[in-house]
């Protein structure tokens, strides 16, 4: 990427401030960057870093209380801030395009896709038919195979991935010179994310569009971008090539981000994540010296007093750190020291099960009309969970992965009794659990607890943390109010929060702190089994890392068994002793983590693994699943995965239910392909991938 071409986008010393009451808070301070045609530039940071503000400022589309208070944004040399509104509309129409984070909310719910796309393509003067045929062509370009149907649909009739394709088609409609992607895949499944990233990469190569890619996910950025800027609390702390990012980032924050994201196969007990201490700096209370100093393991006196300048490094990067020369010379490490130990119980799994599901079935009826009921047509049902048998050994963790719609959450809800199972059995040690929560007695509630995905929804905003923690202690454990309060304080300490939090309400806590509180609550009754349903998915990476480590430590201390549910294979493999892979209501593979992550694996597992964005950038020629998850109302016959399987054999897959194959003791998968045959093709595929990765740049 050394071709000297004039930059498409040049941001010079940009400062953006938000008015809040009487205050003016600078959310982005003095940031400069430039992007050339055909270049993809990544902007990385956690929430509060200012990355989305920067993206919106580039678009000249800040919220009403936001304002550019310094610097300039130039598009092909033209200062955008000086343009009158009508000319800016031209720029929006033709030159800069934004692909937003939430595709569902970004399409008008009451207009058909075709009409919305037409609008983006209209030149004026063309007939409606010409316009529509261009729209259909545009949909084909983003690899939508049935553009007519999609154009006639309303947004809610499409999946998230399909909606995002439509938005990309809109964005690319007039061949813009700059494409800004703001977390475009954050709410999508990994398989969909991989397909979208492929699409963007190809389209950009074809059209030499400049790209600003905003994300918290370093893996995604590394697969797509040539260059990356890391933002922290509104300042650029490092600017470096993707290659340098993989090899040796200089800034401790960049290193902290890298060390917070689990790689697939990284295990808690062997290679723990190194989360960044503390919380992101608040804009109204910025430190006097380096903004990152209060969280930095390398901070010394000058760091606390003097704000470091952005300095150029020997290999053309930029870094804002007093100690970068020491780091570059290898005298100190940008990565935090490894924690003393995370003790991990490595008991061999005995025969005992803390939690067992046998043939668990959950069907939801699809409502029938009166006429259908009179005609006695058989009721259609959603087969959400269809014969799931799993068990979690005491003190161990079972990870459950699958795309959204695979039935993971319904499984969890049936286990805790929030949904009543249609069939099968759930046992807690030797107690057979009643289907519904109402029929279970308090001892079961005490021994089986759940942590939900969204701590905002799981905490009553009007109750203090103390109330939240004391309630289960009094109700389930029978403690007196005074005892409960003392125990609540102890629980807070166990999740590394000070007892001062007892009197705070959820509104006063950060997202990570809230999730700690919900975890503390679930541990209040010292449960034997804890269900964690996407409990870290919505958190920032550094917070996610500390919660994952916290869960590991709590398990070692308290001895609870975990059912850890996530779409994030890396997070699952980090925590889980065993992994189960779920597809359309069925388990397709189960076994010890080390075995599940290596061939032979079920073709679906293979596709999931291959879709995980890796820091080493190896995604080319990976396996991509065609289409969306089929409907669970009429699941495909034979093998349920046959409609999307990259290793489809033929009619046998369409007609016969696949048998369980034993790949190794304790490692089983459901497929018509025998373990040795599957291993043979998959090992070769894996080796090819590794070879390509090594050729394209050393892995971390």
């Amino acid at each position, binding site marked *: 990427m050394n071709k000297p071409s004039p930059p498409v986008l040049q941001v010079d010393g940009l400062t953006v401030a938000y008015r809040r009451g009487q205050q003016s808070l600078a959310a982005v301070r003095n940031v400069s960057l430039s992007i050339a045609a055909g270049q993809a530039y990544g902007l990385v940071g956690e929430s509060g870093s200012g990355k989305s503000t920067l993206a919106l400022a580039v678009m000249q589309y800040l919220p009403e209380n936001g304002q550019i208070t310094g610097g300039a944004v130039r598009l092909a040399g033209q200062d955008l801030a000086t343009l009158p509104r009508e000319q800016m509309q031209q720029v929006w129409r033709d030159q800069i395009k934004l692909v937003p984070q939430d595709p569902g909310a970004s399409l*008008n719910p009451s207009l058909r896709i075709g009409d919305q796309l037409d609008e983006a393509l209209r030149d004026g003067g063309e007939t409606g038919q010409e316009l529509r045929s261009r729209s259909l062509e545009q949909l084909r370009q983003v690899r939508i195979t049935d553009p007519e149907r999609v154009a006639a649909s309303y947004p*809610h009739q499409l999946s998230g991935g399909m909606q995002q394709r439509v938005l990309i088609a809109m964005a690319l409609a007039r061949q813009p010179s700059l494409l800004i992607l703001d977390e475009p895949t954050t709410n999508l499944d990994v398989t969909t994310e991989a397909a979208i990233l492929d699409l963007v990469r190809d389209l950009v190569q074809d059209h030499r569009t400049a790209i600003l890619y905003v994300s918290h996910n370093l893996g995604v950025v590394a697969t797509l971008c040539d260059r990356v800027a890391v933002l922290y609390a509104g300042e650029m702390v490092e600017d470096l090539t993707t290659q340098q990012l993989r090899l040796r980032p200089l800034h401790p924050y960049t290193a902290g981000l890298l060390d917070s994201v689990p790689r697939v196969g990284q295990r808690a007990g062997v290679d723990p994540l190194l989360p960044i201490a503390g919380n992101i700096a608040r804009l109204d209370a910025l430190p006097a010296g380096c903004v990152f100093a209060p969280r930095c393991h390398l901070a010394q006196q000058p760091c606390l007093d003097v704000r470091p300048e952005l300095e150029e490094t020997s290999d053309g990067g930029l870094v804002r750190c007093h100690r970068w020369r020491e780091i570059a010379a290898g005298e100190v490490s940008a990565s935090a020291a490894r924690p003393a130990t995370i003790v991990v119980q490595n008991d061999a799994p005995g025969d005992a099960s803390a939690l067992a599901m046998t043939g668990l079935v959950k069907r939801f009826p699809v409502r029938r009309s009166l006429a259908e009921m009179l005609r006695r047509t058989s009721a259609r049902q959603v087969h959400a969970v269809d014969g799931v048998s799993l068990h979690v050994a005491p003190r161990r963790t079972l990870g459950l992965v699958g795309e959204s719609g695979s039935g993971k959450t319904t499984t969890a809800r049936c286990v805790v009794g929030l949904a009543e199972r249609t069939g099968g059995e759930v046992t807690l040690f030797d107690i057979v659990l009643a289907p519904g929560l109402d029929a279970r007695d308090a001892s079961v509630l005490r021994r089986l607890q759940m942590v939900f995905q969204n701590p905002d929804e799981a905490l009553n905003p009007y109750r203090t943390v103390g109330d939240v923690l004391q309630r289960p202690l009094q109700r389930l454990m029978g403690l007196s109010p005074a005892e409960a309060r003392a125990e609540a304080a102890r629980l807070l300490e166990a999740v590394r929060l000070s007892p001062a939090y007892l009197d705070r309400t959820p509104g006063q806590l950060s997202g990570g702190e809230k999730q700690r509180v919900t975890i503390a609550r679930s541990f209040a009754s010292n449960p034997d089994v804890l269900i964690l349903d996407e409990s870290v998915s919505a958190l920032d990476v550094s917070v996610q890392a500390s919660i994952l480590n916290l869960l590991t430590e709590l398990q070692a201390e308290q001895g609870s068994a975990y059912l850890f549910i996530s779409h994030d294979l890396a997070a699952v493999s980090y925590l889980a002793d065993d992994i189960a892979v779920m597809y359309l209501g069925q388990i397709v593979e189960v076994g010890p983590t080390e075995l599940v992550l290596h061939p032979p694996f079920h073709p679906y597992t293979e596709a999931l693994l291959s879709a995980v964005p890796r820091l080493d950038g190896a995604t080319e020629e990976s396996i991509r699943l065609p289409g969306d998850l089929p409907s669970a109302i009429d699941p495909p016959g034979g093998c349920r995965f046959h409609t999307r399987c990259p290793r489809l054999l033929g009619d046998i897959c369409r007609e016969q239910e696949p048998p369980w194959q034993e790949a190794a003791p304790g490692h089983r998968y459901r497929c018509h392909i025998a373990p040795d045959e599957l291993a043979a093709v998959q090992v070769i595929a894996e080796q090819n991938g590794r070879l390509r990765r090594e050729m394209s740049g050393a892995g971390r």
Partner: protein
Amino acid sequence: MSRYVARRLGFLLLTLLITSLIVFVVTQWLPGDVARVILGREASEPALAALRAELGLDKPLPVQYLSWLGRFVTGDWGTSYSTGLPVRDLVLERAGNSLMLAGLTLLIAVPLSVFLGVVAGLKADKPLDTTISVGSLAVVGLPEFVTGLILIDLLALRLHLFPANSSIRPGTGFVEALPQLVLPALTATLVLLAYVTRLTRAGVIEELRQGYVRTATLKGLPRRTVVGRHVLRNALLPTITVLAISFGWLISGLIVIENVFNYPGLGRLMTFAIDRRDLPLMQAITLLTVLVFALANLGADLLYAALNPRIRLE
């Protein structure tokens, strides 16, 4: 869709049946003897008994109910006790008048309040919005008889634009009655105005925050198109529903306004019937009111579904 409508109509019939039962029972409980009301305080006992027998009031209640219901369904709504006229003619005549008033009110209120609401929403928290919001709230704070009298004083007595008395003769057509309809319609508009304006304003503000507005703006569309094509389509959904439902109130709930302007609508007929303890008249008006409200609700739901592709009626 048609299946949905059929089911809703079925429910509507059930609602009417239950209401008719309630109406019937409640009118039985009302104090006072109908025969005595009709014949007067000095009537002799045999004369009263004869009239009771003639009216069927001496039969068991279930029989009375069924025969009443049967006659009602076949179009015989009975004879008004107090006027001796057929109830059906009386009620339908007045219902027609109420319909005219409701129609004119909506013709004025819908464009006005939607326009004000959209302007207020687009200029949220700016002086114009504050003016509109405070102004419309001030107006709604006043009871109808006060706004009605102010309008009479201003537009009728001082400016002589419209007549102060709206007592139109039976059989008057819409165009002919128009001058006399304006003042009551304006008064009813003022009642609706603040509510609909605020609802519309809230809808516009809510929709302006949505991501699709950003998408539309960043397509480079002019503000006019963004608002007209994208925002209003979604922002007006709740407004339209509320307006459809308010139609029921406009037909039969304008008792105060009709009295202020002496307008011969259903509301005034109802007060008349209550005054005279005219049971057949009260029963007919109540059932008609329930029917109108139920139809207005159904209409609102159908309209909402027609305008909102996310709703599928099954």
